[in-house]
Structures are given as C-alpha cells and as structure tokens.
C-alpha cells in the first residue's frame, strides 16, 4: 500500500516525461547496439555522434543545422499552403457530395483514381508542367501537397457530414430550418471529429507531398533537395543524410502536433 501511494504521489507529468526519456535512451541503445552487433558500415548506419557532428559542421552559409532549418522552413511553407488548399478543396468537395448525390456518384471514382496513381510518377510532371507556365518554384510543390491532402479530407468529411442521426435532422425540420442552417448548425459540427481525423493524416501527408515535389532534378530549395544531396554524398558524409531525415520528421511531427492541439480545443465537448 505504501508503494502505491508513493507512485501516486509522483505527478503524472513527470511520469510521462520519465517514460519518454526512457524510450529515447532505449532507442539510442538499440541503434548503437545493432550497429556493433551486425557490424554495419557507416554508410548503412552511421554512429549517432556522426549525425550530431553533421549538424554542427560549418559551411559557407553557416553551420549545417542553420542551413537545414532554413530549408525545412521553406518546405514547411509549401506544405502548409498545400495543407490549407487541400483542406479547403477537400471539404468543399465533400459539401458538394452531401448536397448533390449525382456529384458523388460521378466524381468519386476519379477522386479515388487520383490517389491510385503513384505520386512519385506524377510529381515530376507537375513540377515541370507548372514550371513551364512560369509559376514560382514553390507552387508546384504546394500543388503536390494539396493533391495528397484533399483525399483523406474529402472521404472523411463526406462521412462526417452524413453522420447526423435521424432525430437530430428531424429536429431541424421541425423548426423549418433551411438547408444552409442545417449545414452550419448540424452537419458541420457533427463532422468535426471525422474532419480532424482526416486533417491529422493530411498534416503529415502534406509534408511528404512537398518533399516529393522537391526531389526532381532542378529543385533548388527545401529539405527534399537536401535529402537528395545527402543520399548522393552518403559515403563521404554518412551523418548528413540522417540529419536531413530528422529535420523532415520533425517538420511532420510539428504539423501533426499543431492539428492535434487545435483538435483538442475544437472538440473539448467530447473529452473525458
């Protein structure tokens, strides 16, 4: 009993941090352990110290971490633009589907088909095509991010907007509510839990989309460009590729975290 009360007295915050630290320590141990155990060469799996060292290495534009940070922010802007555009267009498409059945039946196959095409094959075409039109280079990346973002939003928002139960709808009918009122006061709030599920998927997908857009030859800025550079020079500087990967992952987590935070606020009526 005494032990239980002791554990109970540790703040949950501390416990959570403690567990997180423990997991990180374990991951680091496994990393270095498997490198030794399987005898992996540096270009396959560098030492952690090499990654750290890659971050602080100086370049003419300042230390590597600062260069990578700038590229990551650039990619972040592209992804954010794509996320917003994809979120809006995805939701509008869902709103159309809910109010006009033929649209859903007619367009849904194309929406699905659009996602079945490997984005890797499509990306260079979009980049080149948009570039030919004289658009700024970030636009094609944002478009690819949009392309990956809108799909989960469309699917989930359509479901969410339809998720109202019969009595809730009848209540609105009993007030002789207009379609617009039913949409705003019932369908949209009812769809929010579904929408946020989609937005969390889209948050990371939009980052992936922007990065994929940066991979084709000719791109000059963004963390995707650095990933390409890193894989080309991996044998000379094995820590650098992993440094770029870490930055990309952090960006994705940041996007996800922000959406999750907004979700907590927006859906506080659902908590507990």
């Amino acid at each position, binding site marked *: 009993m005494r032990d239980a009360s002791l554990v109970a007295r540790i703040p949950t915050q501390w416990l959570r941090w403690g567990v997180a630290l423990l997991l990180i320590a374990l991951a680091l141990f496994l990393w270095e352990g498997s490198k030794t155990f399987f005898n992996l060469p540096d270009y396959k799996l560098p030492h952690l110290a090499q990654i750290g060292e890659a971050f602080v290495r100086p370049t003419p534009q300042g230390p590597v971490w600062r260069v990578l940070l700038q590229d990551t922010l650039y990619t972040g802007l592209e992804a954010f633009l794509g996320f917003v555009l994809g979120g809006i267009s995805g939701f509008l498409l869902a709103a159309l589907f809910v109010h006009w059945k033929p649209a859903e039946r007619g367009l849904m196959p194309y929406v699905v088909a659009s996602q079945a095409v490997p984005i890797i094959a499509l990306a260079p075409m979009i980049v080149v095509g948009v570039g030919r039109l004289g658009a700024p280079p970030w636009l094609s990346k944002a478009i690819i991010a949009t392309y990956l973002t809108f799909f989960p939003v469309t699917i989930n928002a359509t479901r969410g907007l339809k998720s109202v139960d019969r*009595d*809730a709808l*009848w*209540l*609105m*009918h*009993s*007030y*002789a*509510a207009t379609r617009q*009122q039913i949409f705003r*006061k*019932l369908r949209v*709030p*009812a769809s*929010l839990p579904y929408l946020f599920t989609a937005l969390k998927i889209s948050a990371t997908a939009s980052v992936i989309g922007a990065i994929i857009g940066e991979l084709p030859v000719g791109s000059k800025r963004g963390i995707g460009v650095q990933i390409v550079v890193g894989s080309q020079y991996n044998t000379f500087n094995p820590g650098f590729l992993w440094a770029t990967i870490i930055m990309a992952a952090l960006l994705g987590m940041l996007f996800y975290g922000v959406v999750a935070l907004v979700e907590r606020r927006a859906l506080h*009526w*659902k908590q*507990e």
Partner: protein
Amino acid sequence: MSHIIEFDQVWKIFGAGESETIALQNVDLTVETGEFVSIIGPSGCGKSTLLRLIADLLPPSKGDIRVNGKTPRQARLDRDYGMVFQAPTLYEWRTVLKNVELPLEVMRSAREDKRGRAVKMLDLVGLSDFQNHYPRQLSGGMQQRVSIARALVFEPTLILMDEPFGALDEFTRERLNLELLDIWAETHKTVIFVTHSISEAVFLSSRVVVMTPRPGKIARIIDIDLSYPRNFETRESDRFFELVTEVRETLKEEFTRGEIDD
C-alpha cells in the same frame, strides 16, 4: 373551439410486399384547440408514427391530415408545433443553454432576449445550475428535461411529446406532470402526449386515446372528466382510480384480442 388536428381515415404503411408493416390503420381523430390528449398503447403500436405524421416528418400512406386547418407541411413551415422526441436529441457540441436557444436561433426570432427566454425555460425544468454543462455531463432524465425546455422556448401553440418523462423517476415525473399542467393552463396550448404510463395519461389528459397492438388502430377514446386544476388529491380520488381501471381494462382487452387474431 376549432379543430387543431384532424385525421381522416389515415393509414401509414412502411415497406412493401413481404416486409410490409401497417403502422397505422384507418385512424380517425379530432383534437380541439386547447385539449390535452394522451396516446397510450403497447410498444410498436404506432404512437411515435402518429406524432411524426402530425409533425410532417413522415407522409401518410392514405387519408388526409389537417393541422391548424392547414396541411401538416404548411403547419411545420409556420412553426406551429414544438416536438419533444422519444430520445433527448441534444446537440452534444452545444451547452445546455445553447441547446435551448437553438430553435430561437434557427427561427431568427425577432425576440430580443434569446438568452433570457432560454434561462427562464431552464429554470422551469429545474436546470438553472446546468446552463453551461454539455449534454454528456447530464443524466438521461436531465437531458430529457433540456429537450422539453427546448420545445417550449419558442412558444408553439401545439406541443407534441413522445414519452418525455419515460426516463425519469417517479418523483421527478410527478413534479414535471404538475409543471406541464401549469404551463398548459397558463398558455392555452394544445398538447399531444404519448406515454406508457396509464396513471400519467389519466392524470394529465382531458382525453386518452387507447391504441390497439400492431396494426395500430384507435381502440377507444376515453374522456377524463376530472376537473382541472389537478393536484395530489386528484391522484387519490375514487374517480381517478375508476378511470385508470377503465384504461387498463381497455388495453388488456385489446391486447388479448390481438393475440387471438394472430
């Protein structure tokens, strides 16, 4: 007195062929303005369906319905009735107060004081202290009381209630019965009240409509000749017991007849 509700040989049939269900069979019913009419009958006999036809949430299969002298659709568009559903049907993302304000919002009522009206109605159902709670934080009975406040807040002339007190304990139920009678007497509304409770039906109503088991027909309409205002003594009067017995006998008769018919 004018007829606020008229059913002329109304049928409601769900589905077709094998899966056909006759929910209402040839219902004739006239309700006068200002009446308190209860509808009682076994589960599945079509009570909710009857209310939904009045409310224009479902169309009749055959026959003619008039509400306030109009088609049910017109009456709905004119917001002539307020409905209390069998389930509370609160919007979970709105606070209690916001739920009660919902009809006023939708109707863009010119009434300045939405909040004041809503607060008053919540007071009436005894939930003033829960204005800022969310539905999930309330018990089932409390949720149902919110839904009653919501139906009354825009002062419709006709109130349709589908087992509103079904989820409540006996004490709260009797208290709300009295409240409801007060509101009814003060505002000269017409109430159509679906219930499973014989004593509740007798206590509240000026007439009790007894329905048969599926397919739902009107077995008998019983006049309740107890004088208003009613109170605790009413429940203990001999006449009250006689009427309760009469309703019970009618229900029992119809129930056994239904079984023999099958």
